């Protein structure tokens, strides 16, 4: 379904490796199954040819990997960035989290990535093979002889259904055409929850967040969570990771996490993509983004390098915290 081919990416990687522009390539590699694509640092052409993949499962946002990888490699790293990844890339540059000089960024177009959970829901478990066939996926499971045909569009990640931008906001080189920022409906679901009664909202989140197993996948995948030492790993922070003592604990974890990335979150959707419990964590981030847009004017983190995040900024006539609710009650 992707418009750009694996061969195009391989050719680009090979030539940049060959001419010495880069010494390593940060790319996707085959996993055990068709869908468990894993990030990998490639340094040889052979390795690339054998293991590099590019398909509808390459959702991983590589920006975060640059924080640790740029230190470990001499010379430049080639990184492939989908449009949404470039926002994280810029945001990390804003926060001085890696050296831009050590990265060669190649922007690649993206037609949306597949949500493995949705796929499994469509075909059942035990997927043994996935083949691409135009806009469809041919999925073979260990239980069925005939592969099932699943249209990609039916199993897209939520973040891709509500894609906010096909435009690359950072790159050294762009493969394919420059895309556009999309006027997406990504805040609709937040608005729906806002429209609920407090009891309904509480029940909704109680239901979602009580499933949290505190695996920290959301934090570990989040490109805004690159702290040298996470507060949840710090015994002095008062909120360190431990078995939840009460039911508020998960909520507290997710509020703190969302608050910590508020104003810095680019809405890349990695948190929800990686959550093994399918908790719609992006809604928490989007609530902050929506609020910030409404209270302090439109702000897209990572749209440019060096912008000042709304929560480390102010104007003298900002909204009062109490007025937040007055406004909402008036709208209702």
């Amino acid at each position, binding site marked *: 379904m992707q418009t750009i081919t694996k061969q195009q990416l391989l050719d680009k990687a090979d030539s940049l490796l060959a001419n010495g522009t880069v010494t390593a390539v940060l790319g996707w590699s085959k996993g055990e199954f068709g869908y468990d694509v894993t990030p990998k640092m490639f340094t040889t052409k052979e390795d690339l040819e054998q293991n590099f993949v590019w398909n509808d499962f390459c959702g991983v946002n590589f920006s975060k990997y640059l924080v640790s990888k740029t230190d470990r490699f001499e010379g430049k790293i080639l990184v492939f960035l989908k449009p949404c990844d470039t926002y994280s890339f810029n945001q990390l540059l804003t926060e001085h989290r890696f050296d831009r000089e050590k990265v060669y960024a190649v922007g690649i177009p993206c037609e949306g990535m597949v949500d493995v959970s949705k796929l499994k829901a469509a075909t059942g478990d035990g997927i043994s093979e996935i083949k691409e066939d135009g806009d469809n996926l041919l999925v073979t499971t260990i239980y069925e002889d005939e592969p099932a045909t699943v249209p990609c569009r039916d199993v897209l990640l939520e973040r891709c259904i509500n894609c906010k931008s096909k435009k690359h906001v950072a790159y050294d080189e762009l493969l394919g055409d420059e895309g556009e920022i999309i006027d997406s409906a990504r805040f609709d679901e937040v608005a729906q929850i806002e429209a609920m009664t407090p009891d309904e909202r509480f029940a909704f989140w*109680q239901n979602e967040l009580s499933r949290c197993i505190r695996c920290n996948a959301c934090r570990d995948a989040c490109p805004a969570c690159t702290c040298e030492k996470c507060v949840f790993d710090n015994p002095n922070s008062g909120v360190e990771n431990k078995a939840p003592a009460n039911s508020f604990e998960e909520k507290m974890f997710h509020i703190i996490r969302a*608050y910590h990335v508020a104003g810095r979150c680019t809405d890349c959707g990695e948190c929800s993509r990686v959550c093994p419990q399918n908790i719609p964590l992006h809604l928490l981030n989007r609530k902050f983004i929506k609020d910030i847009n409404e*209270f302090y004017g439109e702000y897209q983190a990572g749209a440019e390098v060096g912008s000042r995040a709304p*929560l480390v*900024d*102010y104007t003298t006539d900002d909204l009062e*915290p109490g007025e937040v609710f007055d406004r909402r009650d008036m709208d209702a």
Partner: protein
Amino acid sequence: MQVNEHKPLIVAFCCNWCSYAGADLAGNNRLNYPADVKIIRVPCSCRVNPMFILRAFQRGADGVIICGCHPGDCHYTSGNYYTRRRMAALFSMLDFLGIEKERTRVEWVSAAEGAKFAATMNDFVEQVTALGENKRLEDLRCKR
């Protein structure tokens, strides 16, 4: 029928320069407010980390109020402006999670506003008392 009224637990964060002084003035003028309010002194309202507020709720507080200098009067020139943004965002998020918005408040109280401090605390305690026990934030499993 006897109503066993719940005594709420209120944590008030007060900035040293305006609101804490305002609370002192309320004391000087013997302006009563409920003993449910316990004040924690911070140098500036911008010192209040959202984690402190969540921690208070987690440990059983029924309401949290943050008091600082009036906007424009911050001892540190801009601290309360940051407080204003941070708390607007945080309280909106708590509300989004279905936690009663009446349990949180930000109030600007100057060093001269002892009366306002007492009135604010009376009002806030009344508001929180009306909501009853804070079931949404504390442990559900241990309580009915």
